[in-house]
């Protein structure tokens, strides 16, 4: 039942991501990054949201995680994080401010994903 619901959500999300929408509304697709410092050294996390519904996150020249996402309206659903129980899905609210993006927890039971995702603020990577 849960799986079915998720499947429907994915379909919905795919429908919302048609190119005609992208021109008017902000889209998560493409590259976003976070600049921070870790133990005194600059640290950048790059997230690449791809049209096939996977998002790759990279830091220090290495892939850190490759997971699945689906967007529906201003809600994003993440799944496939190895830190979380299998089939666990977390939902987060997306807020766009011009060239930046904020992600806030709606509903998730996976503490590691919450820690890595809630209140994260990304900047759009300019090509």
């Amino acid at each position, binding site marked *: 039942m849960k799986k079915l619901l998720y499947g429907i959500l994915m379909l919905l999300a795919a429908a919302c991501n048609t190119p005609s929408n992208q021109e008017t509304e902000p889209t998560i697709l493409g590259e976003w990054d976070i600049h921070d410092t870790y133990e005194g050294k600059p640290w950048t996390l790059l997230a*690449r949201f791809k049209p096939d519904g996977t998002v*790759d996150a*990279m*830091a*220090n*020249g*290495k*892939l*850190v*995680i*490759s997971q699945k996402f689906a967007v529906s309206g201003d809600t994003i659903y993440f799944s*496939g994080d*190895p*830190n979380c129980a*299998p089939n666990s899905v977390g939902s987060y609210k997306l807020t766009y401010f011009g060239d930046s993006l904020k992600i806030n927890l709606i509903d998730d039971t996976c503490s590691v994903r919450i820690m890595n995702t809630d209140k994260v603020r990304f900047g759009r990577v300019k090509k």
Partner: protein
Amino acid sequence: MKYLLIIVLICGMLGAHFLYRNRTSAVPEDEISLGKTLFFDPLLSSSKKISCASCHKPAFAFADTSALSLGVFNRKGVRNTPSAMNVNNAAFFFWDGRAASLEEQALIPIANPDEMNLPVDSAVHRLQQSGFYQAAFRNIYKEQPSAKTLSRALAAFQQSLETSDTPFDDWKMNDNQQAVSESVKRGFALFNGSANCVRCHFGPDFSNLEFRNIGLFNGKDLNDSGRAGITKKTTDLGKFKIGPLRNIALTAPYMHNGMFKTLREVIDYYDDPDKIVPDPINRDSLLAKPLNLSERDKQDLENFLKSLTSRSLTNL
């Protein structure tokens, strides 16, 4: 004609050797090059014949090619030598995680009777007796050689051995679809999905901060209890550090005991562990059911693992 070629080759080798000697005999000016010199120096073993590099061989991603390495006087160790590269993200070292930092780790093989067999004090004394090392340590640390600076230099060298110049990284980092074959992409999808590998092997080096039991402990012929030897907890029986997978194609044989000779043997094991070890103790539930991988799946997984090899090492 043939002989001439051989003579030219020999001269070339001698020349290279000479150059190498010459280069290393210049007093190192930074931690990394000092650490490198120490890593290759048999002075740190009782017999003056074994260096870190005797077991951690540069051409094999600083791992060894035999299941168990030989230390001083050909003494055999009890575990397989892992790669000393890509150690920056590790939270602990050794298969059972008994060292918490590279600095702590570095002095252990020096004193280990089966490895270099030299008490750390004696090692430090030897360095202090050497004009070359006196100069280098004073230059870099402003003090004479000590256990602390010895371990710092060895750690610094190993920390410089990061590799992210693999076809896989080119694919992921640069979104370069041509960097890897379709088979590698399918292999990664399996690894990251239905084959469950990612549930243990994840993060930048495909390891993570846990110890797990994949079923290579039965208390009989497979009797290394791993993490339990340190924690004394029965729940840790047979658990080992999750082997990081960068440069894995170069570091055969595999696992804490080196029991698998090829990546294919590793994949066949994960496909149906019971076929190879039917009586494991405490095996992880992720390996409860056979994966039923097809021949193509296995080839794809293997190709993915091979795509994690650094270009700098392929070109050696």
